[in-house]
């Protein structure tokens, strides 16, 4: 409690100091670069490739924001943050936005004074067990040893799940996902629990992925999204509507392949025209250029393209769309109207 008060006071001090500075959007434009807080490395979401370029699903959103604001998807300075440093880095102004698999929770939004601008991936915590264990449901895991990363919300979710089902477990604390993989493969624990996306990525690396099953129970809600500092609504709007532009583009069938054609020959759908700036002036309302959404979509593609490229069925991770499908396909992605 005392610690969180201390942290809160610090955050408050940081915000008071930050409020003196100009708006983040102006800062970013003056700097010519977006400082984007990202992961030190998470499969599918953020990783440097062999040329040292950051790639991944979270990274792509940073690039889209940079493209929308500055017109250049490479005008991003990636700041790798750990689970411990991410919030202070954002509160102190070292980064402009944080896109790092961060779960949207009440305390983070309200107490830590951040603004979650949306959700770019709906995740949930699950369990992976070896097929040979013969377990088909997480409720059969009574008395099991479970590998779990310490200091994350997964630890608390796990305790909640086992308490509500009135069964017992023995935690095997681990520090990183790599350690978890090794411990699990070595048989140090019966089950491994983390977010489903992480489990899928981990299972894909095993020599025999078919020997392991991910149990059907999802024990928590993990809406992962980009966040910015409290109190800078212009900048929050820019990030929020960049994300919505990518989602809406998928809904309306605007892809990086056909976007040039759609801009050149405005389609009959006025919503697309407004999104792409061939009609109306949504961009200038945000303080951006008219074709901000075009640049954002061209940076890597619409939401669906990014999903398929980095974490979708054709990648080794092979995640299904599930909750992350458009609302028209039974998912939760729902971009408000562009008007």
């Amino acid at each position, binding site marked *: 409690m005392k610690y969180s008060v201390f942290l809160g006071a*610090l955050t408050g001090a940081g915000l008071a100091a930050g409020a*003196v500075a100009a708006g983040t959007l102006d800062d970013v434009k003056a700097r010519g670069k977006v400082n984007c807080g990202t992961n030190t490395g998470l*499969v599918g979401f953020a990783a440097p490739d062999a040329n040292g370029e950051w790639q991944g699903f979270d990274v792509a959103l940073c690039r889209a924001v940079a493209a929308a604001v500055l017109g250049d998807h490479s005008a991003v300075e990636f700041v*790798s943050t750990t689970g411990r440093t991410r919030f202070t880095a954002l509160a102190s102004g070292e980064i402009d936005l944080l896109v790092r698999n961060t779960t949207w929770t009440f305390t983070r939004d309200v107490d830590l004074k951040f603004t979650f601008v949306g959700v770019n991936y709906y995740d949930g915590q699950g369990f992976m067990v070896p097929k040979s264990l013969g377990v088909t449901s997480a409720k059969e895991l009574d008395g099991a040893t479970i590998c779990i990363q310490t200091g994350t919300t997964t630890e608390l979710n796990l305790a909640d799940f086992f308490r509500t089902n009135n069964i017992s477990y023995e935690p095997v604390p681990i520090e990183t996902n790599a350690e978890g993989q090794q411990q699990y493969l070595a048989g140090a624990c019966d089950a491994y629990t983390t977010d489903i996306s992480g489990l899928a*990525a981990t299972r894909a690396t095993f*020599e025999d992925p078919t020997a392991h099953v991910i149990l059907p129970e999802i024990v928590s809600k993990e809406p992962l999204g980009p966040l910015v500092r409290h109190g800078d609504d212009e900048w929050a709007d820019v990030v929020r509507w960049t994300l919505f532009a990518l989602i809406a583009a998928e809904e309306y069938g605007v892809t990086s392949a056909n976007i040039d054609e759609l801009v050149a020959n405005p389609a009959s759908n006025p919503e697309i025209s407004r999104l792409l700036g061939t009609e109306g002036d949504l961009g200038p309302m945000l303080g951006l250029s008219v074709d901000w959404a075009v640049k954002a979509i061209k940076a890597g593609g619409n939401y669906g393209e990014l999903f398929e490229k980095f974490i979708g069925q054709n990648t080794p991770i092979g995640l299904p769309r599930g909750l992350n499908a458009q609302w028209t396909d039974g998912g939760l992605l729902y971009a408000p109207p562009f008007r």
Partner: protein
Amino acid sequence: MPGQPFVRSHMLPERAPPATAAGPLLWLRENLFSSWFNAILTLLSLGFVWYVLAHALPWIVQSSWTANSLTECRQQIAASHGPGTSGACWAVIRERYLQLIFGFYPSRLYWRPILAFGLTLAALAPILFPALPRRLLWLSSTVPFLVPWLLWGGSLWLPVSIALGAVLGYAALRLVTPLAGSLAGVIAAGLVPVLWWLFGAGPATGLLQSALPLAIDSVQSRAFGGFMLSITIGIVAITCSLPIGILLALGRQSDLFIVKTLCVGFIEFIRGVPLITLLFVASLLLNYFLPPGTSFDIILRVIIMVTLFAAAYMAEVIRGGLAALPRGQYEAAAALGLDYWKAQRLIIMPQALKISIPGIVSTFIGVFKDTTLVSIIGLLDPLGFSNAIRADTAWNGIVWELYGFIAALFFVFCFAMSRYSMYLERKLATEHR
């Protein structure tokens, strides 16, 4: 003939000793099988070594160097060594070794860190090996200004004007000391460069740069990573912590109350706090306390913290050396009429440092290895980078190969330091044995 004494008429030629009393057999018997208990221990140890090698060597040798992902590695190993063989996937090292060494540093500028590293070694050489010509010391005095310029780039005039600060400090020492005494001289020598660096260096750089532009591409600190980051932090911390540590050790023994209190307080505070805490302070708290908009380079912050940490430990190691000196050495120095600094320089320190060599080098090695802790605050040192490489879908799941490569490189550096310290101890062994 009985009673006839035996008289040898010629010497027998020397014969080789029996096989068990010389050569390898003797060595074996004396060192490995000198008693039944030792024989059992020897056999057990041999069995253990064989067990380890029998598992590790095939894994190291039956490997893949050419694959482009972990899955491909497994296919190649299964194809060439039979299915079910487990082998190392060294291909990840082939693809990423440059990243593990240079981090995100632009590849067309790799020559700059390499040149900087070479210059650093050349500058350290005359300090480490007194046999080398003394003229090389000129190089040693310019390298501290040249190397940061090579690493970070930017205007050449910045290091020049920073070096000018050092020259001004020396000039202040020389000018003020005759006028106002040695204490005022020392204070002036400390104050003048700091004032110059704070207020004069920036404008001077701008002025010189506009008059004669001399600049190379500047590289952001965020681009630093891998071993380059470790070595940068390590070398700066090691070279700066020794002089600071000496001053702190002397300060702790000083009779001046304030100096002594400050030194003791500093040493005890730093030693009482884990390095990780200091790194968190450098990375997080300073961000809050500094006015918004100030960009105090994160690597510089970390270097300062690691240096202070190492200096506190160094001070205690050197204090151990000072305590080991007989009281008579101090008295003899005083009897010769030497003042404090001369006594320290000519009599006390050479002996105290010699005694402390093993401790000093242990601290150096510890500091160098501690640089891997920066991965906790999100800097991509080799360990941090191994995590980032694993986050690539192609290489997710690779552990031992990356850690093995990193461990091997760390071993090279630490072993070299350890060997040098043994060389130094032998060279300085002047007492009778």
